[in-house]
């Protein structure tokens, strides 16, 4: 049983990796400079998403964070701040704490991938900075996020 689960998880990772590299291929042909912030955002992906009221990094998020770590190891001139965000379906103070927990989960994952802890700060915006703005399930899913911002 454990074995099967692990296998499907690995298969899923491959699938996701395949999809995102395909997506990445198109914009990469435009004018983005490798190693720039735009390169990071477009070709790596600066954000990972969470389930409702959760701060566990999902499989899709692992793939993104893994790519982020790879890129960041290549371009070591950046400091990062991981911003934790929540959807609007929680109370303000609790969401500040939940956003902090999400930011920290992403940070821990990056550290585990070999990014020095000293390079990564965290900050929580709770539900104060929605992106996109919307009050439906699709918008909320995109709002439950941890965004890696480069400085």
């Amino acid at each position, binding site marked *: 049983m454990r074995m099967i689960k692990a296998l499907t998880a690995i298969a899923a990772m491959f699938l996701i990796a395949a999809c995102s590299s395909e997506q990445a291929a198109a914009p990469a042909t435009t004018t983005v400079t490798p190693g720039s912030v735009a390169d990071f955002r477009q070709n790596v992906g600066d954000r990972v998403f969470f389930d409702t*009221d959760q*701060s566990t990094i999902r499989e899709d998020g692992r793939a993104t964070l893994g790519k982020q770590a790879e890129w960041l190891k290549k371009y070591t001139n950046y400091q990062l701040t991981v911003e934790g965000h929540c959807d*609007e*379906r*929680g*109370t*303000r*103070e*609790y969401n*500040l*704490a*939940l956003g*902090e*927990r*999400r*930011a*920290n*989960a992403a*940070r821990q994952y990056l550290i585990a991938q070999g990014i020095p802890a000293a390079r990564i700060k*965290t*900050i*929580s915006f709770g539900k*104060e*900075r*929605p*992106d*996109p*703005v*919307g*009050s439906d399930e699709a*918008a909320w899913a995109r709002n439950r996020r941890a965004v890696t911002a480069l400085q």
Partner: protein
Amino acid sequence: MNTRFDMMLPRRQTILGGVALAAGTAAPAAAQLTIDMTKPSFEPVPIAIVDFKGDKVGADIAGVVRNDLQNSGLFRSIAPSTFIQQNIDPNQPPRFPEWRQIGAAGVVVGQVTTAGGNIKVDFRLWDVVVGQQATGLSFTSQPNNWRRLAHIIADAIYKRVTGEEGYFDTRVAYVSETGPLGARVKRIAIMDQDGFNNRYITDGRSIALTPRFSPTLQEIVYMAYGERNEQPRVYLQNVDSGRRELLGNFPGMSFAPRFSPDGTKVVMSISADGNSDIYQMDVRGRALQRLTNSPAIDTSPCYSNDGTQIVFNSDRGGTQQLYVMSASGGGDRRISFGEGRYATPVWSPRGDFIAFTKISAGSFGIGVMRADGSGERMLASGFLVEGPTWAPNGRVLMFFRQQPNSGGRAGSVTLHQIDITGRFERQVPTPTDASDPAWSPLIPQ
């Protein structure tokens, strides 16, 4: 903000004395000049408030009193155009039959006189049913304090009729919200309870949230980000001077601050490595004491009215629930057991109830429960309602409502007040969108 609010209010004396009360026997009238708010059903008390004698300010004061009483939901202000007795002498009993005829249970009359740069306001509340004066007071103050005088008069009438303390001479701190949601400007503002005298306490260059008053109203605590979106921290700010200090500089985020009832301590959440716990700080000495230590989110702490306990919100049991612990930490016990998630608990100034936000089945509600968690009652609900705060008399709550966003535009965010029977809800006017209300205690006189 810039001018200190000093006034000559404390000289308060009753003028009950030598007024002749020669009115006739009490005719059986429909309405009484008393109301028991806890009664299951009642009609608002019909009350006639006559413009006070003395220039425009007399009429203005009467207008504020009418507005306060009407907004409480417990009174029905009778339209002045229907008054039969005109040109009423504020020092003589009104002609009761003429007031009974228009259905008034009480008549309020008054006059404003000026003396030495101050104004003196006298008022009387006449009980039309029994044909006697019910209460009467006199105040002296600077002319620009006329709105406060009106609120104090409204409080006196409210107290005489309901038996409960009034709450009109109070202020509300809140978060003013402007601009698009993705770059929303959130600044702290303070206004009178009825929405007047609005002023901004922070400049809006950084996001400021969750303001709360000190018991003297001279200070507020709130959380704010740095101007370049640095880590949120808790600030203590003097309302009049604007001077602000950082309450402790911790590596993690500090948030959700609240004063103890005696004003000597502030309780708040501080997070470290993504985990939020509750701490208590001595305001003078700045000594910090840790009150919770769990791997869960512990936040939104609020002291009991006597300062011995703290109610807070934790997800240590898997979902957000309410817990009560000793104000020195320890003895945690869960008090919420209904379906859904519970948040933002606030202890009533009377100690009897805890108000909260509840999220269940995709909608939000404001409710109250007894301090032991029993007797839960929901008062208001909606797409998003949040953050109740108590009026000082513990009978009325204020909270905020947010409408759904649509088409990339922010839904409106507004303040509302509701009495604890859930019967009367009304929107509180604010100049901008508004959230996170914090009701002040009665303004010290």
